[in-house]
């Protein structure tokens, strides 16, 4: 009995530690924040709001990429380890297409004044289409006949990601490059809140996240093919026994999931830059988002993206200046808290 009692009190201690880990950062950001460049939020609401917006826009990009990852996993139980490589490839294809379209001497890179809206949209579509095609080929050629062996499928996608990453290094080089936003997006807008001038590009990213989230929600919840996918998530065998072509559904899900990785790469390449190693970071982001949110759940991907986006941005902004480089630890702490409470993620459920 004493053993049980001790175990119980240990649990209480654990809960208290977890609670403190959640509550303390909030108090810190709102009221203390000593040694940071901004100071506490009550003294400096403007920078707090900017950090919040940065977190939300980062979350939107995380969501675009991770929703594709979770869609593929949810339906097919395939952990696509090549998702990060797809992200990078989509970005590179768009980059090359844009430079070809704009033409002339690119030099160190294009400036947004040289780029029209079409010269961003067409490269984006090219990147998305190529990655969607490669995703489809990978699924049909390698994954389809290994269905149900999820570790083997993960190993196959790892092999593909090694090859893709090395080939991208060969073709696009090791120097960081970026896609140029069109001039229409590249400006500041006045939000009329606390006098914030905010970059339109980040708001565009937020818009993409919301539109894609809404479209996926509508597709999965309101259309016939979406319903087939959700039915497939619950019981693959039953769906195919009812005469529905589940293989076609799988292929569609893989195309859409890969396309989202590619589109994420286009946005990411415009927002930040493309270089070797970016693929690993985005695989990490997608994995963290879906582990936090719960594999295969769209709502989970949204919550996971929000938590990750806010955590990374607030950690970078509100750590004391000498310690900003410790911000990566907060990603780990976030993951640890969620795994300690819900090993399957916030919205996860047993397969």
């Amino acid at each position, binding site marked *: 009995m004493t053993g049980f009692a001790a175990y119980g009190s240990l649990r209480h201690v654990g809960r208290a530690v977890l609670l403190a880990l959640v509550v303390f950062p909030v108090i810190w950001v709102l009221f203390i924040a000593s040694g940071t460049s901004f100071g506490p939020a009550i003294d400096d609401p403007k920078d707090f709001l900017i950090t919040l917006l940065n977190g939300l826009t980062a979350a939107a990009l995380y969501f675009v990429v991770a929703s594709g990852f979770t869609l593929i996993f949810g339906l097919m*139980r395939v*952990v696509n*380890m090549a998702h990060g490589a797809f992200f990078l490839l989509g970005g590179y294809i768009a980059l090359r297409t844009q430079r070809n379209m704009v033409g002339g001497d690119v030099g160190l890179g294009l400036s947004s004044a040289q780029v029209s809206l079409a010269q961003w949209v067409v490269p984006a579509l090219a990147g998305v289409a190529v990655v969607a095609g490669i995703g489809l080929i990978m699924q049909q050629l*390698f994954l389809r006949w290994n269905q*149900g*062996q*999820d*570790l*083997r499928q*993960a*190993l*196959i996608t*790892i*092999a*593909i990601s*090694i*090859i893709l*990453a*090395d*080939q991208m290094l*060969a073709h696009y080089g090791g120097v960081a490059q970026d896609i140029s936003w069109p001039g229409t997006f590249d400006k500041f807008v006045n939000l009329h809140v606390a006098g914030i001038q905010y970059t339109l590009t980040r708001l565009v990213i937020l818009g993409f996240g919301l539109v894609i989230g809404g479209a996926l929600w509508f597709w999965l919840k309101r259309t016939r093919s979406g319903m087939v996918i959700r039915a497939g998530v619950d*019981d693959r065998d039953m769906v195919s026994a009812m005469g529905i072509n589940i293989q076609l559904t799988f292929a569609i899900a893989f195309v859409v999931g890969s396309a989202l990785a590619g589109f994420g790469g286009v946005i990411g390449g415009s927002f930040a830059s493309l270089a070797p*190693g970016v693929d*690993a*970071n985005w*695989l*990490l982001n997608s*994995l*963290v988002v*879906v*582990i936090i949110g719960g*594999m295969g759940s769209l709502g989970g991907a949204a919550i996971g993206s929000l938590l990750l986006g806010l955590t990374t941005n607030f950690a970078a902004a509100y750590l004391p200046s000498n310690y900003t*480089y*410790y*911000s*990566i*630890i907060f*990603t*780990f702490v976030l*993951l*640890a808290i969620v*795994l*300690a409470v819900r*090993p*399957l993620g916030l919205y996860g459920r*047993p*397969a």
Partner: protein
Amino acid sequence: MSSSLSSRLSADRIAGAIFVALAVFAPLIFSEYWVATLLTQMLFLGVVAASLIFLSAYGGMVSLAQVSIYGVAGFALGNLTTNGNTKGLNLGWAEAPAIVVALIIAVIVAFVFGALASRSYGIYFLMITLVFSVIANLFFGQVTSVSGFGGISGIPIPDFLSRTAHPDRLYFVTLGVALLVYATLRYVARTPFGLTLQGIRDDPVRMSSLGYNVALHRTLAFAFAGVIAAIGGILFVWWNAQIAPSTIGLSATIDVLVIAVIGGLYRLEGAWLGALVFVVINNYAQDVDLVADRFHTLIGVVFLVIVLVSPNGLIGLWERITAGPRRALPMDITQERGSAEPTPVG
């Protein structure tokens, strides 16, 4: 059936004896470059891969965090033993206490990683440990007080092992450690601890019903494998004299997975077999124009072919050859094993 089994056993023993004999007499047979560079590297990479294969074969846990633990040990040793002239803490400790403390730090990290991942199974476990690995890499890349992007260089090797003292000593020490690791892992697998671990691999729900603390047991197994990986990390730092975040990046993580898969994820011997193939391909690829710069494409293709053709790796191929036609193939390790979730009914 029994005759083919015994013939396989003896074939295994003969092959094993030949390998060990070749390893012991390697300095007489191969050039100094081969021994001091390639074979030493093969041995410590095999130690790390063996820690992964141990978890995978006996615990059903395919962990991608082994390289991060290897890195934690390496960085800890680097910070403790260096004395100025490099990044990091430069604590200037003596070797012996530094090794002990480095191992302890690595095991604590392994324990925390294991505790967090211990309630996840199959592919979830793989993903979570991969995240740990990438986070460890970013941590060392960003935290300049312990490493920073360029890493730690000029890490001293014990005088006794230095190349100037004797060119082959580090090789023999690494060989001895590798043999010891192999024997220890074999032994642990047969102890009650190892048998319980195998029970958990096969049916965690039943083991839990029998009163075993499944999560704790998996955590301890993970920490134990962490010791092995950390030993590999220390050997690596001695061999390389420096360690950088890129040494434990995603590509290194995948390299160790590739080694384990090429060898075969379900038998410990596969670790060193896979490491040998990896190191040799790496070495010869440098001389071939077509693939010299594209080593990872080559490794990716080899890896893909192995996964597609022989999921049990080279050891699986070996068993198929020595077993004769009648023997049933070993269970495909790449099939999902030990899933905790009860199979849904209906």
